[in-house]
């Protein structure tokens, strides 16, 4: 083997020589499929029943209470009221540290019923939108109580959806016809929570972040209660075409908006 070149060179040459001769399966058209998922339709895959921690929702209109102290701006109340001109949402100031009157757990709360997405679509009077970028939700809750219905899509934590410590889920999306709802949820913004106006789908919206904020509910009789199991993570709040949306996530605003952009 005297005239052999070092085996390494020959081997590496042979490997490089092999590369263009490999018969890979034909490359599928990922562009069309991916584009469709980002802009339209559902990902194929199973809709898994989420048997994790139960999340309790107060039903109906979202009422955003902005702590004036947190805003720290003169004339903020009027400005906030104008900004928060969302159907079904009214602005109320709250004390710096909202301390609601205790009421019996479960009172005023309506647990939605877990249903399939198809059943949910049939049950409500508006067009339910889903974020194509996330695929099918893991659980869908429907509450028939507010006229027109309220739908909550629940996504379990996964790689691209870090678990929100407050709720134990990856992402929540609530939607309902806000203007018609008699009950409301009130959010108490304590110190540390930031309220940022943001454009969402060309509409005025709000991004609440910075600190877990408690979700206080108030029923039609004006009784308030605090759901101790219910703290909200970052929240994006907006309305479009008469439907109010509330997206809760541990993600940051830019990522939340990416997900919203895939709503169909």
């Amino acid at each position: 083997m005297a005239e052999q070149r070092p085996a390494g060179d020959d081997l590496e040459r042979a490997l490089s020589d092999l590369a263009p001769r490999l018969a890979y399966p034909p490359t599928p058209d990922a562009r069309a499929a991916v584009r469709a998922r980002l802009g339209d339709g559902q990902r194929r895959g199973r809709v898994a029943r989420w048997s994790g921690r139960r999340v309790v929702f107060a039903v109906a209109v979202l009422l955003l209470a902005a702590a004036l102290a947190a805003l720290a701006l003169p004339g903020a109340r009027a400005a906030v009221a104008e900004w928060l001109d969302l159907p079904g949402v009214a602005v109320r100031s709250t004390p710096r540290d909202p301390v609601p009157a205790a009421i019996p757990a479960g009172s005023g709360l309506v647990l939605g019923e877990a249903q399939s997405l198809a059943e949910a679509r049939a049950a409500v009077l508006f067009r339910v939108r889903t974020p194509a970028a996330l695929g099918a939700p893991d659980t869908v809750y429907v509450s028939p109580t507010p006229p027109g219905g309220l739908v909550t899509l629940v996504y379990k934590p996964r790689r691209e959806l870090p678990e929100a410590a407050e709720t134990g889920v990856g992402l929540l999306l609530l939607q309902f016809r806000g203007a018609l709802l008699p009950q409301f949820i009130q959010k108490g913004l304590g110190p540390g929570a930031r309220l940022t106006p943001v454009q969402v789908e060309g509409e005025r919206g709000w991004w609440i972040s910075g600190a877990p904020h408690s979700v206080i509910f108030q029923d039609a009789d004006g009784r308030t209660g605090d759901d101790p199991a219910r703290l909200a993570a970052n929240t994006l709040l907006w309305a479009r075409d008469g439907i109010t949306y509330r997206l809760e996530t541990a993600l940051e605003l830019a990522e939340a908006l990416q997900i919203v952009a895939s709503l169909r």
Partner: protein
Amino acid sequence: MGGGLRLEERELVERARRGDADAYGELVGRYAEIAFRTAYLIVRSAAEAEDAAQDGFVKAYIAMPRFRPEAPFRPWLLRIVANEARNRRRAGGRRQGLALRAASAGTEADPSASPEAALEAAENRARLLHAIEGLREEERLAVSLRYFLDLSEAESATVLGWPRGTVKSRLSRALGHLRERFRAEGGADG
């Protein structure tokens, strides 16, 4: 790749980061083949590789706000695809090996080679491919990404999630095993 092409891709990436799904679609078109092949090398099933690449692209789109624009895009993307492929590999199912394209007249490197020499060369290639498929998984991946996909050591490290030193050592061990095997068989050098 010229500077002009890189600039255009940076622009596409930036637009995709801002939610421009059409710009992202353009990127998907450019990377579809290498993404699919990366997934295929890992998971060895065309159907799973298709799903892994597609899911990888979608997840990368959502994660784009976290992508640092000064970093190279290709290994970042392929890492996400590779993770999808690895998850699917655990799921089991039919596994195929890589095949070689059938040699056709006129495509051989040396058109003046005799039919016997051409046949021997083809047989050697088949044996080499078979030997690669028989390597330990990490060594097979190191060789495949480096020589089949032409990824650099640094890129392979990112895509596979290994330290660079590990890529180097696995590659070196793989080549060592292949050399040994062919020495024992009487040489692959045609």
